[in-house]
């Protein structure tokens, strides 16, 4: 671990006799619109925290700006509700000096794929250990109905009232195209069991776990996945012992495709749109460099630091 950690180890020591229920992680009542997918993600996250028994004081949610970025306010963990598009650099900085903290990043599609796209690409490559949740409803909701990079072609908004001019950006192929990408998964807000299973897989991944969560905005993209929600045949679940397996979905969702998440080539092929919505782990590789580990150096004690500083000054001595 980087840097100091004596104090955090002390607080660790008390972890053993504490336990937490879902409610222990719950903050004030969320103010998202009724029917917003963010509620489902919040619930899944609370379930995840409970399932993993993460100490709230050592858990940190970092977000950007947008409806979904209000997320940290509704949890009783540490939170950082920062700038539009800039959650990932902040989270990277936290991991660089505080690898003892469990870091989660919550972004919307505008946050991640538009204003913060540069950080998305580069953080994927840095591969710090954290879970990045991209809550993708294909529209700017907070600023009231503007086209986002993931808006489907033809979707009318206030900025593109005659329909989105361009095909939607595909966050899965984009992430899978980045060198050192180590975990890419997709799930949907209407499948709570699949959502939770995916979050748990992401949490256990050693590296940057990118999870795209498909959801709708009840105000502006209410129809986005309506067909898929009604008709399980439009969904294809990627299944594999190293991926996400949700037995309770097996009876309803007949389209099950075995996919080995270590196969990057196949992952990229499956991420291309072909009429099916695929949910599951596309890619997972734990043999890639993790930035804060690559950059980990021991911190000398203060007295040793002073001695080293004096040696350094000797180089400049008159």
């Amino acid at each position, binding site marked *: 671990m*980087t*840097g*100091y950690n*004596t*104090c*955090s180890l*002390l*607080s660790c020591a*008390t972890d053993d006799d504490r336990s937490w229920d879902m409610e222990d992680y719950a903050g004030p009542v969320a103010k998202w619109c009724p029917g917003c997918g963010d509620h489902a993600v919040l619930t899944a996250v609370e379930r995840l925290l409970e399932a993993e028994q993460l100490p*709230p*004081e*050592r858990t*940190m*949610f970092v977000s950007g*700006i947008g409806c979904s970025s209000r997320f*940290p*306010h509704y*949890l*009783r*963990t*540490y*939170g*950082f*509700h*920062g*700038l539009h598009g*800039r959650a*990932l*650099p*902040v*989270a*990277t*900085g*936290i*991991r*660089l*000096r*505080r690898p*003892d*903290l469990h870091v989660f990043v919550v972004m919307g599609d505008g946050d991640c794929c538009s204003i913060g796209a*540069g*950080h998305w*690409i*580069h953080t994927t490559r840095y591969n710090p250990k954290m879970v990045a949740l991209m809550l993708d409803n294909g529209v700017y909701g907070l600023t009231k109905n503007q086209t986002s990079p993931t808006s489907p072609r033809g979707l009318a908004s206030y900025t593109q009232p005659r329909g989105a001019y361009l095909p939607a950006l595909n966050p899965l192929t984009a992430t899978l195209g980045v060198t050192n990408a180590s975990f890419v998964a997709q799930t949907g807000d209407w499948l709570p069991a699949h959502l939770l299973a995916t979050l748990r897989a992401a949490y256990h991944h050693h590296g940057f776990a990118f999870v795209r969560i498909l959801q709708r905005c009840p105000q502006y993209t209410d129809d986005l996945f309506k067909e898929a929600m009604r008709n399980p045949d439009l969904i294809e679940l990627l299944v594999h012992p190293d991926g996400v397996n949700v037995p309770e979905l097996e009876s309803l969702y007949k389209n099950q495709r075995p996919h080995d998440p270590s196969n990057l080539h196949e992952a990229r092929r499956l991420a291309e749109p072909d009429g099916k919505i695929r949910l599951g782990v596309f890619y997972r590789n734990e043999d890639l460099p993790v930035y804060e580990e690559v*950059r980990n*150096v*021991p*911190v*000398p004690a*203060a007295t040793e*630091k*002073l001695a*080293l*500083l*004096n040696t*350094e*000054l000797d180089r*400049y*001595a*008159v």
Partner: protein
Amino acid sequence: MGSTQVGPAREPVRAPARPTPTTLSVTQHVLEIVSDSGEGAQKCGQIFGRVSAKMGNGVWTVEIIPAEIQPPARTPPSASGNRVRIATGPVTNWGDDANLVVAFNEQVLLHRHRLGALAGDAVILIESMWATHEDPDIRRAWAAAMEEMADCAYRFIPVPMEEQCLTVVDNPRKGKNMFALGMLAWIYSRDVARIKEQIAEEFRKKSKEVFESNVALLDLGYRWAEEHLDFRIEVPTTPPAGPMVVMNGNQAIAVGGIAAGMELCAMYPITPATSASHYLSEIFERFGGVVHQAEDEIAAIGAAIGASHAGKVAFTITSGPGLALKTEFIGLAVMMEIPLVIVDVQRGGPSTGLPTKVEQSDLLAAIYGQTGDAPHVVIAPATMGECFTCMTTARRLAEAFRTPVIVLTDANLATGVQAFPRPEITEAWLGSPPDQGPVAQGAKPYAWDQETGLSRRILPGQLGGMYTATGLSHDEDSHVGYSPDVHERGCQMRSRKMAVLHQMLEPPVVHGEPKGDLLVVGWGSTLGAIEEAVDRARAEGLKVSSLHLRFLEPLEPGLKRIFKGFKQVMTVEINYSDDPADPHITDENRRRGQLSWLLRANTLVDVDCWTRVPGEPLRPGDIHEAMRAAVARGGRA
């Protein structure tokens, strides 16, 4: 000195063989070494400067830097090198005109001549091969250059540098600098053993062969000078009172940052700040620190904020264009009250401006560049020594006041070398590790003391302290609130901290008498040039004093009272201001120097300004002239 002068179109006169040298003893001397970019004149100047400092001379060096990495050879813009001013006592600035120049070709010399950088009677040691070069274009260029400089009483001494170097190395482009260093070592009676030590240090990553050929070239230059030159220059040394170190401002910022206990420097490459991160990248890991080269300027400050927020105060280092990009995050750090140190090594602007050259034009952007009301601290070191210590000051202020602190240095401080008393670093400089103990029941993340606006930070990891920091308007609990009282209270508390800091500062000390006709006010790297000009003006009877500010936001206290002692107050700065004599300029529309603007707004005193943007440090002689003119005007500009 003799008069072996070369006129235009004449063959360079052979230097006299084995003369008996006369020794000129002076208390200060300015020399320059200029070459095409890539020929190593900078390395020669740096080693000469460091060795002179180690021998006990006062030293100040300034880099002469072309804008491109490999500009076309033998052209004036290619001029690259160093100015070194050495003296018996301390040196605080680069002086006025160069007294001695080593030039690797006549075009780079012409560049310095055209800038008026050379004394009328400067001695010029010039590579002689170009006068008789086989290419007629080069011979013509030489002749034209000599013609252009013919009116000056320069003393040209032709030196067959290339011919000499070829006796030792195959590629003289890689050797002339050490030959030149050897000549300078003889002229100024430098300690050759120390020079060799310094060469070993500079080339420590190179092979033994490289070191040995450099030393052979040094010895060759030394012998050539001994056999051919008829003068030496003696600048007596004075032993320093205590232990000293000699480094440039970027090195001082880098080691100063480590001595301040910081463990993360997040940066993105930008001139002229990068050399600090190069140096840090080399040494930081030994101290448990990391240089994080982020994907852009925004991500760099973002990562620094992440680490700082989590309890380890970090810094980011940049220059003007980078500061512009960091603006939104600086505002966030103000709003969330996150300690953070931002170093802006200023260069010429706006936009890409003059990437390698000095300017002091980010002052108002540093203080007011953020949207909304974003009070934070802005300080400016004035010397290399202050570059070192200001990093600890900045880190402490950042933590004590829960605020970003912007440190404004500039290209002059960054690349210039000066000796300063060796800092005595103690454990207190390093700060304390982040508090990870449980927080008291009911503790709030912004438990503002209503009197001071100060509050105790709660750090992630602390049991019972969970909260979400937000850039939205918030109350003591960090709960988002849009009501008038929440927003007004937050603004008031953040602003009050600046007033509290202001009251903790000591009034600045006037250089000269506390009363007089003119008070010159400066900030940053101009300290030495201004004080030298004041001393010269006072020596001729002018009632001139100066004041130098290190704190720009909040401003240092007592300014109004100090200003009352003078008939006129005038800032001297390296940024743009309208000349009152220019077309259309009136007292109402005149755009003034940035410090003058700030002082007028804060004191309601009619503070005048004298500013220049030459892309180089100010010369004491020019400031002296400006003081004379201001005193002669007697009152208003």
